[in-house]
């Protein structure tokens, strides 16, 4: 069987190994710990590195060191740990190193709780560290995508020499589903030429300091050019029954799964509902959203947060049609009934 019943968190590691990831540096935190546990089990079997670091700060800096060799490497955590990693992520972006960071979101702020939430959108999508940088962000909504998008994240990271996030929520991490591995080709790990390998022909410099303001500005402009290319080429999305939709529901991760059921239920009740699901949160599929804002009468964003993605949707919509919002927090997952009820009221 090339299919396996697997938790999303495990699927991440299987995808990472197939993607040629050679090193995992982590620190345990619920609901992301299975990622570290799976890495601890599988990585050494494949001659690859697993280190449980003393903190998330250390683990992201180990990633910096390994990524500096031009190899594929990764780390994973949840909100409190991602907050600690932000310094390192800024350095990684500034030094133009590729790596994959998985965030399995839990309730916040502070210690919050370990139930699923989507409150890390701002710190991940907007770049929670200092400086003018961006990270591509993939938002899986199934165990299959935890594998596939992790695999893809390594490609994107390497293509642009940039940190890339896989942003999941506790549910997507903890949920078991069938995962099909037949389609992924195992990537043979290699060290890219620009990396520091400790050899005569790799005396390269990995660095984010530019003392001269003009040089630093030029460096920043180069980064922005790169982000523009990413915006042009990397946006991914999925739509469901949007062709004739009056109301387009918008959500990512576990929320998008609930919204899909809401769309079906709403259609049964005679409401022309559709679903737009961003697969990349940055870059956001603006062209599609622009198309939809002309064909639909209303957008309805649902998140397990205080309303973070909705801000970006509103920026795209520019007031052309109403953008409504419904959010749950604290680990509560919106129910189909509750969202259906609001959808009916809005229609």
């Amino acid at each position, binding site marked *: 069987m090339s*299919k396996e019943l697997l938790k999303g968190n495990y699927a991440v590691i299987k995808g990472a190994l197939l993607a040629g990831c050679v090193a995992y540096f982590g620190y345990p935190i619920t609901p992301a710990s299975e990622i570290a546990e799976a890495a601890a089990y599988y990585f050494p079997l494949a001659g690859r590195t697993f280190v449980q670091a003393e903190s998330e700060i250390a683990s992201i800096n180990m990633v910096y060191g390994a990524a*500096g060799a031009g190899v594929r490497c990764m780390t994973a955590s949840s909100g409190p740990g991602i907050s600690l990693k932000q310094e390192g992520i800024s350095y990684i972006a500034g030094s133009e190193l590729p790596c994959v960071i998985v965030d399995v979101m839990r309730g916040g702020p502070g210690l919050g709780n370990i139930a699923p939430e989507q409150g890390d959108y701002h710190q991940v999508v907007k770049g929670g560290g200092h400086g003018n940088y961006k990270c591509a962000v993939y938002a899986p909504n199934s165990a299959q995508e935890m594998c596939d998008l992790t695999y893809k994240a390594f490609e994107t990271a390497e293509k642009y020499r940039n940190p890339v996030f896989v942003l999941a929520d506790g549910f997507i991490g903890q949920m078991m589903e069938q995962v099909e591995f037949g389609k992924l080709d195992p990537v043979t790990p290699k060290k890219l030429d620009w990396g520091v390998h400790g050899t005569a022909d790799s005396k390269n410099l990995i660095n984010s300091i530019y003392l001269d303001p003009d040089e630093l500005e030029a460096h920043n402009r180069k980064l922005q050019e790169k982000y523009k290319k990413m915006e042009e080429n990397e946006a991914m999305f999925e739509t469901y029954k949007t062709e004739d939709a009056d109301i387009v529901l918008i959500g990512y991760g576990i929320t998008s799964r609930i919204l899909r059921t809401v769309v079906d239920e709403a259609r049964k009740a005679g409401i022309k509902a559709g679903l737009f699901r961003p697969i990349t949160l940055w870059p956001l599929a603006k062209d599609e959203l622009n198309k939809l804002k002309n064909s639909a009468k209303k957008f309805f964003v649902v998140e397990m947060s205080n309303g973070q993605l909705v801000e970006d949707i509103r920026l795209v919509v520019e007031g052309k049609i109403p953008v409504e919002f419904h959010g749950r927090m604290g680990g509560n997952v919106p129910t189909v009934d509750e969202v259906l009820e609001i959808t009916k009221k809005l229609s």
Partner: protein
Amino acid sequence: MYEPILSKPKSFFETYKEKTGDQTITHYCPGCGHGIVHKYVASALDELNLTDRAIFVSPVGCSVFGYYYFNTGNLQAAHGRAPAVATGSKRVNPDSIVISYQGDGDLAAIGTAEIIHAANRGELITVIFINNAIYGMTGGQMAPTTLVGQKTTTTPRGRDPHNEGYPVKMCELISQLNAPIYVERVALNNAANRAKAKRAIKKALKLQSERKGFTFVEVLSQCPTGWKVDAPDALKWIEEKMIPYYPVKVFKDTSNEAEPYPEAKEIISGEKVFEILGIKRDEKKEETIKYEIPEKYKNPRIKIAGFGGQGVLLLGVALAQVGMMEGYNVTWIPSYGPEMRGGTANCSVNISDSLIGSPVVEKPTILVAMNKPSMEKFEKDMVSGGILFYNTAMIDTEPQRDDIIKVPVPATKIASDLGNIRVGNMVMLGAIIEKTKLLPLETVKSGFEYFISRKNLIPLNEKAVEAGMNYIKENNL
């Protein structure tokens, strides 16, 4: 003809092309110790023939521009994180020689966790620790190593132990750990001590090249600018003030006994990775549905609930696993977290012939209640016409609803008769598949290897499933 007897080490660049301004001299202040230590590192690399393998990690601090000078691989690290960066680099470059070169603010304040744990893991790196009792780069603020009474810009009346604590002795700390094999403190105050410093640095790098273990050299180093003294007085200050507090000596040297670390394992790639991951890649693309679920129970949305320890999560996994093997889309979601510990646990399972939207089962078509609180909590949510399996061995009340099918099964009792109450969940599984024909027994049996981790328990689990089936048959339920 003449031969130069003193020349710049080849591990330095000829001219410092990364540097702004004069590219023939360093950026260090006159009389600073950093340049001397740089030279010891470079000469050691030359003498040991390690230049090409070396990776120099520049910290935040005055030596942030280490990469101006070292003609090696260069990584610049965030403040205090050099040992973590060095760890990441060394782990993926096992044949390299990694040098984490750090100041006292970097190593003994902001980076305390990173240095202690890199040392404790016994990373195969060499740490050169410049103790100049001050923050040089930022203009002379207090360092963790600033001496008691020493005036700095942030201890204008001198370091007061009641407010700032005592100067940190890093060699003393590091040498307490098991993993480090060589820990020495040296000083730059006179020719004899400088010669020792040079030897210590070379020894540390040599031990790294022999894969012996973690090595740490602390250098008491002068900062005339930060200390606001001239160069000769700075040397005197090391001797008179620093050395009495920071004894210059070998704190630990187990290098003779230390066995070299094993060589790094070869990276496995290609199809073998699938083998390691336990994935059998087969050619057939789409697996079609093999077993038809009776119309009445098609696309079940299942809730299973009970006490933690009753195996409710595993029962859900079993249903999902077998459903998947029959070609269906499946999801399994636990109520995870605190709920899992002690109290009630529950999980949602979907088995569907089409894409599954919400995996959360809010209105179960099948409810399995293994204890009373679970039945009380979830019975009311069931869809009309749904089917309830309830564990009469643990539930002494009757279900309330009249519009559902009720199947009483004393699962825990049957399991206990089989000799292990923990298989009550499998008794329920048997009852479910007998009553609903949701999934075939044969596939349940071939699924065991996937969801029962202790293989010796498979026969017992099989018996439990059969006992559950028999209970339904015998009682015409």
